[in-house]
């Protein structure tokens, strides 16, 4: 039960934060906002760590708002369905400028290069790759569906011209959606540019489907 409470708190704090952030809608939902805030305060005294978490959470959706309410005063499932502010990716805002997003397939290629190099260097026992390297490499390998990152990048370049951010492009490559609807559902930040993106996106997805390697091949 303790776990459950903790989880609810996370959710509650994030929701409270979100209601503060979504300023334009603050007026029409002030009652809800207050409630969410109250939940946050109730828990804030609990642990230091939780406070840190709540202060870190960025903008996000009503999804958790509903959950927050649930934690405080009984189930209210309808709110969960009203997902009006979907959780958006804020990669560009959260990271410093000298950062380049990488697709999983790019990462897999680079990490493989490093691992091969380490095999040669492994005579020196002082240098050892940490466990997180193996895990990250394994993950990149399994989740990358393309054998040739360059051509994938090339295919996705068109989206950049139409205003998609680097992180959004990478996510499309990582998730490898099949339809445009899937793209807009999974990367809600693209919805704003939907009118401009829908057409080029169709072609890009077609191209990606062709570049896709069958998922089983890396394990064969």
């Amino acid at each position: 039960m303790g776990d459950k409470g903790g989880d609810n708190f996370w959710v509650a704090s994030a929701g409270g934060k979100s209601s503060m952030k979504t300023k334009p809608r603050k007026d029409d939902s002030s009652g809800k906002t207050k409630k969410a805030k109250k939940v946050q305060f109730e828990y804030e005294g609990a642990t230091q760590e939780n406070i840190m978490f709540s202060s870190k959470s960025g903008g996000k959706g009503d999804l958790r708002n509903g959950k927050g309410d649930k934690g405080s005063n009984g189930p209210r499932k309808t709110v969960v369905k009203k997902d009006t502010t979907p959780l958006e990716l804020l990669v560009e805002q959260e990271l410093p400028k000298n950062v380049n997003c990488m697709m999983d397939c790019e990462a897999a290629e680079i990490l493989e290069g490093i691992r091969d190099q380490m095999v040669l260097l492994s005579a020196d026992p002082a240098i050892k790759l940490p466990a997180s390297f193996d895990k990250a490499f394994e993950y990149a390998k399994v989740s990358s569906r393309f054998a040739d990152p360059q051509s994938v990048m090339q295919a996705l370049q068109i989206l950049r011209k139409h205003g998609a951010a680097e992180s959004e492009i990478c996510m499309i490559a990582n998730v490898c959606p099949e339809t445009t609807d899937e793209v807009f559902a999974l990367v809600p930040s693209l919805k704003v540019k939907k009118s401009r993106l829908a057409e080029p996106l169709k072609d890009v997805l077609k191209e990606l489907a062709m570049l896709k390697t069958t998922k089983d091949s890396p394990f064969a």
Partner: protein
Amino acid sequence: MFFHIVLERNMQLHPRHFGRHLRDNLVSKLMKDVEGTCSGRHGFVVAITGIEDIGKGLIRDGTGFVTFPVKYQCVVCRPFKGEILEAVVTMVNKMGFFAEAGPVQIFVSNHLIPDDMEFQSGDTPNYTTSDGSVKIQKESEVRLKIIGTRVDATEIFCIGTIKDDFLGVINDPAGA
């Protein structure tokens, strides 16, 4: 998501490591110190891919250690709120399930699992739809969305959801 990033660190080196191999020593110490660590801002430092610049050393008063500012490129892995990723389920219980995407741990609470999926206890605890067509158990691959993250010194822990369109099981080990 993976990133390529340039980071800077002041490395302290003992004078016994000086000489022809100073640079090599500095780089291997950097790798030992940095690889595998994680921070809230950058996530996991997975691997160093190159050294951009090693600045002039500065002798520390009283100790003889020399501090070198080192700029290095590295691959980092950091989950973001709103990111969609594919994870492998590691444990299922009535509270929800745990999954792993590379070095990142994710917990999906049962509130964030679609309402039509019920917990089934037994040898292999799982979440199953009423018609039995979809099952989440250990080793299942799920596509989930990150909704919260917490970082401590050695690991990154996330809260995820599969209660949304286009999320859920992608590969069921039992069905394969």
